């Protein structure tokens, strides 16, 4: 890969499309602070503003200290420490330097200095640094508040003209959803992968996104004009008019391409030779159900119910959940809705539960393990699901099953939920209970699990993480997590075979289902059902329609014997690249390189 030029940032193409807009940098880690480059003539005024804010903060702290009783001892010493920090040359000189040399506004310069100091504490091996970090933070925030008090109105998205490109370190699902209401045209984040929630939400909202663009929040300032190319994973900084014009053309071509694909939405999903593959949608907001139908999905293959639990102090009630589920079921009927019980813990936390501090949350108290610890909460959700099933076809799916006993424990809770509803006289209908297969142990036990589960759904995101021992959120190793790793393909083959022997359907609902170059192998391995984000349904349907099942089966036999992902990717590209090329490129003329990776044309 070539070195990134100063005018562009390279990240991960997380949501397709091309947008041109004005940057708004949000620092979600603390209060939102404005970041802009100042003119040389503003420097002295900005330094004066910083000094003014520092002496105001100092006066405030001194006043507090003077009010303290003389015997306050420790407390007054902490204030003493903070006062010394405000005078500290490390803080003042570095911040002034950032204003004078790097031409940062005072807030930005101060935040950067504070972050630099904190970085040293981050590297310390003991947890003493926590207290130090918060001391430094405290002092920094105090000065920031003084600075913002005079100028907090300077930069808000509303003051920016035209569509806004949101730049953030990372965005929570709630942030992304709330911000979508504003005039946001694209997202760019410092961290994240194509399966992180910013990416999933951006695709649901049909907004281009580039994630994992290191230093985006540092290199981009509010007010900068940008091009966000969510097809290539490129952000262009301060483009000239010609580049903007070219980008707009590409954006329009992409929209035309998407519209053309939409034409097949009424057709069932099937291979070239007429073999049916159920194509369903993964959703996390109830409103997405309508989007799923719109894009031609044959039901919901995964509804992530955990989003009912985030950003609140109490778990949602049975009735509240029932109402939400019923709306989705009624919208989708007669199509099937697969409700997944809450998958919290790991990287998804809810303030509704008390989570222990864990060294290794991905291997900790999450998903079904949490459900079986919080049985009352779990049963309230199961009751809501059973009641919703009275309004249309519903399947219930349990995440992270890693042993047969766990499935049996869930069944017992479901039975209990049923008898509770029976006793209270509420209307409900029975539901098939299936499992997510996403741990290596579930893969190994698939034959026995298949006897007790009504269906399987392979969750490839976690299966890849656990099977290959790769933390997908870790930027240093994330590139090693490849869907077409033969270890993953062999796991899928094993699970599909177990399902087939037991006569139950086997779905696949991870990101892999939406990766077009994985489809030939999945069809060949015999997966019955795919579930992808609503926006990806049209292109997956188009891709399936170009594949012959016999060719896919031949491919599957070959790739299962291959030693590594490189070989598999190359082989798939050589066999299926030509028929899928235009779909991969979002309507553009992409090419496969000799190594099997897909490349879009460069542009200036």
């Amino acid at each position, binding site marked *: 890969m070539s070195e990134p030029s100063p005018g562009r940032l390279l990240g991960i193409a997380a949501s397709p499309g091309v947008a041109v807009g004005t940057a708004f940098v949000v620092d979600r880690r603390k209060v939102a602070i404005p970041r802009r480059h100042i003119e040389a003539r503003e420097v002295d005024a900005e330094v004066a503003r910083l000094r003014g804010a520092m002496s105001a903060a100092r006066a405030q702290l001194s006043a507090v200290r003077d009010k303290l009783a003389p015997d306050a001892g*420790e407390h007054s*010493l*902490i204030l*003493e*420490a*903070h006062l*010394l*920090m405000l005078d*500290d*040359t*490390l*803080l003042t000189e570095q911040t002034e330097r950032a204003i004078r040399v790097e031409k940062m506004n005072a807030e930005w310069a101060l935040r950067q200095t504070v972050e630099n*100091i904190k970085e*040293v*504490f981050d590297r*310390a091996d*003991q947890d*003493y*640094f926590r*207290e*130090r970090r918060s*001391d*430094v933070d405290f002092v920094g925030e105090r000065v920031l508040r003084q600075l913002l008090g005079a100028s907090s109105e300077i930069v808000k998205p509303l003051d920016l003209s035209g569509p806004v490109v949101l730049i953030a370190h990372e965005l929570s699902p709630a942030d992304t959803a709330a911000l979508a209401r504003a005039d946001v045209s694209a997202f760019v984040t410092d961290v994240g992968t194509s399966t992180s929630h910013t990416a999933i939400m951006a695709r649901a909202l049909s907004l281009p996104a580039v994630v994992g663009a290191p230093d985006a929040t540092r290199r981009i300032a509010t007010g900068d004009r940008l091009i966000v190319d969510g097809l290539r994973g490129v952000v262009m900084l301060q483009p000239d008019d010609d580049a903007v014009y070219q980008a707009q053309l590409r954006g329009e071509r992409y929209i035309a391409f998407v519209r053309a694909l939409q034409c097949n939405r009424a057709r069932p999903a099937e291979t070239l030779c007429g073999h049916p593959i159920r194509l369903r949608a993964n959703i996390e907001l109830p409103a997405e159900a309508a989007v799923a139908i719109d894009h031609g999905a044959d039901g919901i293959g995964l509804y992530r119910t955990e989003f009912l639990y985030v950003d609140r102090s109490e778990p949602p009630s049975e009735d509240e959940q029932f109402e939400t589920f019923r709306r989705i079921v009624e919208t989708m009927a007669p199509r099937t809705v697969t409700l997944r019980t809450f998958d919290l813990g790991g990287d998804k936390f809810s303030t509704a539960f008390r989570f222990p501090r864990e060294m290794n949350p991905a291997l900790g108290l999450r998903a079904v393990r949490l459900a079986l610890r919080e049985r009352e909460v779990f049963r309230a959700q199961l009751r809501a699901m059973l009641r919703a099933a009275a309004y249309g076809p519903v399947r219930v799916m349990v995440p992270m099953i890693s042993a047969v006993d766990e499935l049996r424990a869930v069944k017992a809770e479901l039975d209990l939920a049923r008898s509770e509803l029976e006793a209270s006289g509420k209307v409900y209908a029975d539901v098939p209970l299936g499992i997510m297969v996403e741990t290596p142990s579930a893969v190994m036990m698939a034959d026995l699990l298949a006897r007790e589960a009504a269906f399987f759904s392979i969750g490839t995101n976690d299966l890849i993480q656990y099977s290959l021992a790769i933390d997908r959120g870790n930027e240093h190793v994330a590139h090693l997590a490849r869907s077409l790793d033969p270890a993953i393909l062999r796991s899928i083959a094993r699970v599909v075979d177990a399902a087939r022997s037991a006569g139950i359907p086997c779905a696949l609902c991870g990101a892999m289902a939406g990766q077009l170059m994985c489809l030939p192998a999945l069809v060949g391995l015999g997966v019955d059902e795919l579930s992808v984000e609503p926006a990806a349904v049209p292109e997956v349907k188009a891709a399936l329609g170009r594949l012959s099942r016999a060719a896919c089966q031949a491919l599957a036999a070959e790739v299962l014997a291959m030693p590594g992902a490189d070989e598999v990717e190359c082989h798939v590209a050589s066999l299926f690249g030509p028929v899928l090329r235009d779909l991969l490129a979002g309507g553009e003329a992409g090419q496969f390189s000799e190594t099997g990776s897909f490349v879009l044309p460069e542009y200036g």
Partner: protein
Amino acid sequence: MSDVVSEIFEVLNERGLHARPMTRLVQTASRFQSEMSVERDGQVANAKSVMGLLMLCCHKGARVTVRAEGPDAGAAVTAIGELFKSRFGESA
């Protein structure tokens, strides 16, 4: 006339040298005319900068070198040494 005095001290405080002990150190160092520095594992900080001292991350058991240069260097290092030995006035 200018002396250079330096001495090595061990951190006895259970929670290392966090903001409060370091504040005492800065306050004490500021009473002397000498230029003073504190060094740990090759990292040097001005003894009159709280942030700089904190960034040394002196945990319990760390061995730090206190160095003073100036007319009252000896007294300065002795005074700082008293702080280390008395755990900066903390109970543990």
